[in-house]
């Protein structure tokens, strides 16, 4: 759409009005930019201040003597619950959870999208509709049964451990979370790939079929090499969602050494013992935010595309 300027009939005498107009527009835009940047700015400067400066200084002032101490303390020393070894362990927990969950759910989504568009069968729309609706349910409605199932699997894991010598990951909170995120993520990944492959020329698939290419050969040789953009979109979307998840994390790994970053951060901030070290809290929050912010800065375009795809079209 072309920009809307003041109507032409005012053009002769409206030069001043036009300038005022522009100033107002830019002013408003700058004001809102401040509104969006403010919390991040405050968080960032606070994380570089000493406690003394925080209590006596201005929230918006730049640190007089910037110190990395809060960051180091947040990473290596601060207390999460009763253990005081920083948040580094929980950061790695999140990584260990996110990487497999993203890869598995994305691969499954790609295969599902491929089947649902290029190997249509009766009822494919219904199958897709059922999977799609699963994206939107409030997870509270599955939270408790999943906890029950994971609990029994955990007990079974202990039995296995005692009899066979390995639990095969059953009962391991990180494995549980990977499983949960895959289960409740495939709806989204399937949606992404289905919509992408829908626009992919079916003739290519047909031609390959005539040439005798098998189901998986077509997928590997024709679909995958042409799926780079949607892979990036899906991986980013899943990464952000799973990294930022709090509900599942607190329900299934809410205590102990296996809790992911978001839960650990919440524990650090809401701890009631001792003096509250705001600078350390802010540094911890920044560390928790960095991976997704980094992805956003590096691949913002794909991030937005993923949000749109997840939001707009069924």
């Amino acid at each position, binding site marked *: 759409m072309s920009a*809307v300027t003041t109507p032409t009939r005012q053009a002769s005498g409206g030069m001043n009005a036009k300038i005022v107009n522009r100033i107002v527009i830019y002013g408003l*835009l700058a004001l809102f930019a401040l*509104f969006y940047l403010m919390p991040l700015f405050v968080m960032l400067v606070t994380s570089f201040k000493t406690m003394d400066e925080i209590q006596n200084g201005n929230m918006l002032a730049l640190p007089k003597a910037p110190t990395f101490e809060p960051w180091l303390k947040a990473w290596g020393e601060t207390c999460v619950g009763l253990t005081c070894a920083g948040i580094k362990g929980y950061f790695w927990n999140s990584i260990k959870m996110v990487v497999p969950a993203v890869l598995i759910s994305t691969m499954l989504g790609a295969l599902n999208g491929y089947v649902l568009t290029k190997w249509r069968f009766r009822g494919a729309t219904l199958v897709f509709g059922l999977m799609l609706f699963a994206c939107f349910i409030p997870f509270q409605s599955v*939270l*408790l049964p999943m906890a029950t199932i994971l609990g029994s699997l955990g007990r079974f894991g202990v039995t296995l451990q005692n009899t066979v010598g390995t639990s095969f990951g059953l009962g391991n909170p990180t494995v549980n979370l990977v499983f949960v995120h895959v289960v409740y993520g495939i709806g989204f990944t399937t949606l992404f790939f289905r919509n992408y492959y829908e626009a992919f020329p079916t003739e290519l698939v047909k031609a390959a079929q005539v040439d005798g290419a098998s*189901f998986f050969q077509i997928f590997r040789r024709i679909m995958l090499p042409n799926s780079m953009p949607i892979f990036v979109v899906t991986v980013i979307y899943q990464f952000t969602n799973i990294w930022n998840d709090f509900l599942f994390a607190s329900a299934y790994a809410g205590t102990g050494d296996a809790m992911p970053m978001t839960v650990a*951060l*919440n524990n650090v901030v809401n701890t009631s013992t001792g003096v509250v070290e705001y600078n350390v809290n802010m540094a911890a929050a920044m560390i928790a935010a960095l991976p997704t912010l980094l992805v956003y800065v590096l691949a913002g375009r794909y991030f937005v595309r993923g*949000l749109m795809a997840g939001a707009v079209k069924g």
Partner: protein
Amino acid sequence: MSTVATSQIKLTPEHARPRTSVRSRLQDALPKIVLAPSFAITIVFVYGFILWTIYLSFTNSKTFPSYAITGGRAYQRLWGWTFDTDPPSSWYTSITNMGIFGFLYILICLALGLFLAILLDQKIRGEGVLRPIYLYPMALSFIVTGVAWKWFLDPGLGLEQTLHQWGWTSFHFDWIKNKDFVIYTVVIAGVWQASGFIMAMFLAGLRGIDGEIMKAAQIDGATTFQLYRRIVIPLLRPIFLSAFIVLAHLAIKSYDLVVALTSGGPGGSAWLPSNFMYEYTFKRNEMAVGSASAVIMLMTIVAIIVPYLYSELREKSR
């Protein structure tokens, strides 16, 4: 195939290659076999679990699930507890908060998103810088958002203190510690997080509008305001619908933000139904009541999402 010798009346091609039939049938079924695990997972872990939760809501489960149906007692407890007891029941607080939060959150996000999108669509220099600034909060976790705003709104350290230092000593802003106003701080943080994304949706919609229509209206002498009110905004109706669905869905699912920003607020005054569900199920050992609240949340989402998905999918397959 022993019948081949006796019945040779019509020898169709299918009969001609009996040996490959198992393999080819497997080939034919392969797509379905590939899809099957995901579909089965969805059926069991989504729909099966939903039924399980519904079932539990009709039992007397406390700390552990019990499977004897005892009727709708949990629902009676939810709704019977009170529209005018003092202090109000947690469920009453939760749904009132949901009403306030949902209404303001959706309304402000839509209004702000549209407003920013229109401003950004005026051939702005530096749009490439501004857009990501408006949108980045969407990449943050609700926990981080909550932590940042908790600090920012804290009366002793944040905004209030800052303005006092600047000389505006009568400024008073302690909503985050006030049980009657704490839910509005959740609105502020929620709007901060999601409005940029709504802006991006509207901006994409604006860019999709045919420039010719706009030009024609301008030639007819429409003012900018008229142009937007009469032509542009009506054309954006599908975006309003999508944005509404996204926001309603985000609002009903909101849980983390309340936890991180307010820790539930003074006396649970910032609870949303999702917090109610979590607390009752996992902390207060009232599993049946928790399940009943989850069922009500689900029903609300179903009422919003199902008609939308149905019409979307029907349009697609047409």
